[in-house]
């Protein structure tokens, strides 16, 4: 019998240990423990949601409480990815995972910083979103191409510098000119973003906190699916 099938306490213990390794930034241990979870018969979906993602949620709580800071968060994100690498090959389409929505995300042209994106992508994935990471220094046209190709619900415009954030408006305008603006909701992210300024530039919202952004993205997806007008968040 597997841990999933026979002993809930054993399964919970394995998943809790995996989550703790994300918080403890243990890059070596996380791969080993994720493989142990799979070997014990836990489904990949459960290993991700109740192990790795639970760890990321704990990191978020500690960040909000001032117990950990950006350096620790970044390394925890790297550890989360290491765990995902071990689990991903075992995922099969019928394992019951349900996406809360699809998102494309990239750091806009003229900004090569990955700090915000490196935190945001795993946090959004951990929250159940299907995230396509477009990378850094992404041109406006590349965002348009990605919208056409991936058909996301939400577009994330990452900016690290204050000066880069000012260009989010140009990216939104390019998306609008391509006739895609009404198909998607757009959120800006990064340490220097401001929701009011983002809305003035034609985006729907902004957040400087990946965990707070999860709630905002959820509302944007709901509004999009309900056919509500923009600015509803």
């Amino acid at each position, binding site marked *: 019998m597997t841990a999933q099938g026979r002993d809930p306490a054993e399964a919970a213990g394995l998943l809790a240990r995996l989550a703790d390794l994300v918080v403890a930034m243990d890059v070596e241990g996380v791969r080993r423990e994720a493989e142990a979870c799979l070997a014990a018969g836990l489904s990949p979906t459960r290993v991700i949601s109740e192990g790795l993602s639970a760890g990321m949620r704990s990191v978020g709580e500690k*960040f909000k409480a001032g117990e950990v800071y950006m350096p620790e968060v970044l*390394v925890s994100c790297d550890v989360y990815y290491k765990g995902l690498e071990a689990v991903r090959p075992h995922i099969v389409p019928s394992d019951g995972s349900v996406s809360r929505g699809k998102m494309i995300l990239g750091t806009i042209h003229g900004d090569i910083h990955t*700090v915000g994106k490196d935190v945001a992508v795993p946090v959004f994935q951990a929250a159940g979103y299907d995230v396509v990471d477009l990378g850094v220094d992404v041109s406006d046209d590349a965002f348009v191409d990605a919208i056409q190709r991936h058909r996301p619900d939400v577009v994330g415009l990452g900016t690290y510098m204050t*000066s880069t954030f000012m260009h989010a408006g140009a990216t939104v305008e390019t998306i609008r000119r391509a006739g895609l603006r009404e198909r998607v909701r757009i959120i800006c992210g990064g340490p220097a973003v*401001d929701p009011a*300024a983002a809305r003035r530039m034609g985006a729907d919202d902004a957040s400087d906190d990946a965990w707070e952004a999860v709630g905002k993205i959820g509302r944007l997806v709901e509004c999009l699916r309900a056919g509500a007008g923009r600015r509803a968040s």
Partner: protein
Amino acid sequence: MSKVVDEWMGRLKGKLKPVGEMTHWERMAAAFELKPTDMVPVAPELDYWQITYAGYTHPEIYNDVDKTTDACIRTWADLRTDAIWMYVDISHQIEHFIPAEKRPEHFIHRGPNDYLLFKPIAKTLDEAIALYEERTFEKYGPGSRPATHYTPHMLQLLEFQEKMDRVVPIIVGIGTPSNFAETIVEVQKFVRWTITEPKAKLKHYLDLALGERLEALDFYAEHARKNGCEFVCLFGGARTWGPKQLEEFGYADKAFVDKAVKIFPHVFWHICGHNLPQAMEALTRWDGIQAVQYDMPYYSQKLSWPEWFESVARLFAGKRCAMNAPTTQLACHGTAAEVKAMVRQFIECTLPHTTAVIMPGCEIDSFSPLENVKAMIDTAREHRS
């Protein structure tokens, strides 16, 4: 002697109306020394904005020192801020680490009215250490922009400062060890390395960065201070560090400050982004820093702007002059009324506790409307300090 400075002398010397009872210089110096001023000084970091305001494009001034200096003086002559920031872009600071043929790959113009995009020089900690150990900054120094553009521009502005009888100070910007250590490899790598790399190895890298910066201060003593420079902005890195990083690696910036304050009378620290409370406290303990150009509260603080302004002012009381407002974002995307409101809020929250300078935590964006910049200046002029 420079032609561009002499042309401006002909236009301005003896022809400017006083602004208030103090000169711009006196106003800034008094605020830094925590003394009363006739009005709250205003000295926004106009880097890219002033180039556009003066009618130039950024590629146009990139290789023209006279036009760069002209833009700074022209903007000041029109707006009469209480200091002139010398124009600094990333190429001025770091180009001497890169061989000439590789420079175009690392510095890319974002657009005609826009900032310079910089791509990091080293990918690994070993590469970054090698850059310093091999003293590439000496090898590639001659002919690089720090020598051919930054220094001549600085000297022209200091010449203007002296010929104008020190009515307005020039602010010279200098990068700190943490700033250089992060920029060369990109901040996201350095921040991770504070956890993932051996501490001794990262400290060795930081020590090398500190060594180069201390040598740079000798240059500034010879070429800036001896030519009249008194007001210096130390551009801090370490903006995404946590308390542990500050404790373990903050020593390099502290050592840099110790030397800088012995050279320059009026030194302030630039800390943009989300400011960690521990970093703000450290800045009140580093002797010799007179003022802090600060920015937003740290994520976990969850403070409103008035709460943040007041908490910093209380922390700085009797120790530091507080410099902030409006935010760079508001200056670009807000209305003039919103800019005025935020400047007033900062002044009202700060003045009961310490002196204030109106200076957004980061540079004014190129695309900020002129009426917003004017609103910032006009509002400062309404308040006696």
